[in-house]
C-alpha cells in the first residue's frame, strides 16, 4: 500500500493500478457506486476502467477520471486530489503499520519518506520513478518539504501530508508555494507546528 506514494511518482507514462482502484473506491464510498460507474463510462478509457491494484496503467487515465468526477460533482480538481491524498494516507496507515513503528510525530515520519519508505518502495518496484520529497527541519517546530514531480500532483501531496498530520493528531499549519523547475513542477510545503 505504500506504493501509493510511488504512484504519485514522477514518471510521465504509467501509474500503479492501486491509485485507480483506491480512487474508484473513494468515489464509491464518498459519492456513490453510480457516480463511479458514470465517470468510468464517460471517460472512454483505453483500459475500459478495468483495474487491478498490482497492474500498471496510463497516467492520463487518472487525470481523465478526476476531470470527469469534477464535472460530475462540480467539485474542483484540486479539492478532489487533496481529498484523495488524505484517503490514500489513511489506507497507507491501515496497510503498513510497520512503517509507523517508533514514529513519534508527523515531522519525524515525513523526514523518513525519502530515506526509508522510498527505499522500501524501490525494493518492490525497481522500475518505479519516485517523486523527490526532501524534508528539512528548519527549527524544532518548522519543517520544510520540497516536492518535485513531472505530474503536478502538488494537491495530492498536500492531501497526503494532511493525512499524516491527522494520523498523528497534531496541530500543524501548512503553507504551499509553487514553482516550475527544469525537471517539472516543484511544490514547497512550509509546516509549522503550533507552539
Amino acid at each position, binding site marked *: 500500500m505504500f506504493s501509493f506514494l510511488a504512484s504519485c511518482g514522477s514518471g510521465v507514462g504509467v501509474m500503479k493500478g492501486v491509485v485507480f482502484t483506491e480512487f474508484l473506491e473513494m468515489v464509491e464510498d464518498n459519492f456513490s*457506486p453510480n457516480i463511479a460507474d458514470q465517470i468510468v*463510462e464517460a471517460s472512454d478509457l483505453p483500459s475500459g476502467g478495468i483495474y487491478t491494484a498490482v497492474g500498471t496503467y496510463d497516467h492520463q487515465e487518472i487525470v481523465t477520471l478526476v476531470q470527469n468526477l469534477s464535472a460530475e460533482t462540480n467539485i474542483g480538481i484540486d479539492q478532489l486530489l487533496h481529498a484523495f491524498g488524505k484517503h490514500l494516507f489513511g489506507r497507507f496507515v491501515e496497510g503498513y503499520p510497520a512503517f509507523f513503528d517508533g514514529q513519534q510525530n508527523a515531522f519525524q515520519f515525513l523526514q523518513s519518506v525519502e530515506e526509508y519508505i522510498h527505499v522500501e518502495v524501490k525494493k518492490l518496484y525497481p522500475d518505479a520513478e519516485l517523486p523527490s520529497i526532501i524534508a528539512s527541519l528548519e527549527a524544532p517546530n518548522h519543517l520544510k518539504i520540497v516536492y518535485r514531480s513531472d505530474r503536478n500532483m502538488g494537491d495530492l501531496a498536500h492531501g497526503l501530508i494532511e493525512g499524516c498530520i491527522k494520523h498523528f493528531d497534531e496541530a500543524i499549519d501548512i503553507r504551499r508555494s509553487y514553482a516550475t523547475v527544469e525537471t517539472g513542477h516543484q511544490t514547497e510545503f512550509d509546516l509549522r507546528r503550533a507552539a
Partner: protein
Amino acid sequence: MPDADVAQLERRLVRERKARKQAEDLLEQKSRELYQSNQELAGAVSAFEASSSRLSAILDHSFAGTLVSDSDNRVIVINRAARAMFRQAEGNVVGASILDLFDDDARECCEDAATSYIGTDDQEGSEVWHEASGLRSDGSSFPLEFIVTNLELSDDLHRIWIFRDLTQQRLAEAERLALEEDLRQAQKLEALGTMAGGVAHEINTPIQYIGDNMNYLRDGMSDMLSVLRAYQDLERYVDVESEAGKAFERIRSLERDSDLDFLLDEIPKAINQATEGLTRVSTIVLAVKQFAHSDTEDGQAFSINQAVASTIEVTRGQWTPVAELETDFSDDLPYLIGHPGEFNQIMMHLIVNAAQAIDESGKEGNGCIKIRTRYENDSLLVDVSDNGCGIPKAIQDRIFEPFFTMKDVGKGTGQGLALCYRIVTQGFKGSIGMTSIEGEGTQFSLQFPTQIEGLDKKG
C-alpha cells in the same frame, strides 16, 4: 430493482471479472518472471559459489600467508598458509584483531603500516615490505615480513595483508654466515697447512742427512773407542821409565784432565739421544706433511689410522701437558673415501676438546684420552673418549648447534663441534654421537660409511 441499476451492476460485474482475469494473468506472468528470476538467481548463486570456491582454493593454495581485514583490522578471511604460519585455527582468527597476530613490540609497526598511506596519493597502499615479529598461537614468536594493500568493496574499505615467514631465510642466512666463517677458517688453515707443508719439506732434507751423519758418527765413534781401548791396553807392555812410558804418562795426564772414562761412557749415549731426537723430529715433520696434505676436489682413499696418528702428533703440544693418550687401532681397516684434511680437522677438534675438558676437570696428573678405531657393518668407527669434566645433561642436546659453547669467552667460538657435525654428516655421509657424564668424561663416537664397494685396501 430499476433497469438502470441492473445495467450498472452488470457493467461493474463485467469490469470486476475482467479485472480479476487481468490480475490472474498478471499473477501468472509475474509467477513466470519469478520462476525465471529464480532460475537465473540459482544459476548466479551456483556461478558465484563456484567462483567463490575457486577463489578460496586459489587463496588456500597460495604459498604466501594472506589475510583480508576490514578497516578496523578485524580479520575477515585467513588462508591456509597464514593459518599454518601463525598455527591458528580459522575460527580463532576470523573476527579477531589482526594485531593479535603480532608480537607486542611489532603492533605499532603493524598499525603504522596499515595507515601510512591514508591521506596520501597512494590510496591502494605502498609496495613496501615491513619486517616484524609474528606471534603463533602457542605464544612463540617468529620473524616475518608483510605488505598491506587497500581494497574498496561495496564502498567498504578492506585491507589485504600478505605475510612471508622469514624463519627459514634467517636460518639460511645464519648458515651462510657460518659457512663463510668456515671458509675463512679453511682458507686460513689451508694457508697455514701449505706453509707448514713447505717448512716440513725443507726441514726433512737436512734432517735426513743429519740423521745419516749421526748414524755415521755413532758407528765411527764405536770404532774409534775400540781403537782407543786397544791403545790403553798397550800401556801394560811398556816400561814406565822408557821414553814410551813417559809418553804414556803424559797421555794418562791428558785422560785425567779430559775425564776420558766419562766421555767414553757418555758420548755414545749423547749420540743415541741425538739420534732419537732426530727420529722424533722426523716423525713430527712427516706428520705435519701428512696433516697439511692438500685435499683433492673429489676426495681420495686414505687410512684413518694414519690420519689419526698424524693428528695426534700435530696436537701433541695440546694434550701432553694434561693427559696420556692411548690408541687402540684396528689394523684391519679399509680406506675411507673423502677429504683427509677434513677428517684431520674433526680429529683435531675432538682431541683438543678432550684435552681442554681434562684441563678444566683438574685431573692433569690422571688425564687420559683414548682413541679407538674399528670396522663394523660396512662402517669405519672412531671413538674419542676422555676422563675430563664431562658435559652437563641440560645442554647435551645443544652441543652440535652452531655458536653454542660452554667455554669461557675467547676460548671457543662454538663452531668446532658444529663443524665436526657438518663434516661427518655432509662430507662423509656419516654420523656423530656423544655420551657424557658430568664430572666423569665424554665419548664421541663417529661412524663413516665406506662408500666404494670392493675398495678393500688395508690401512
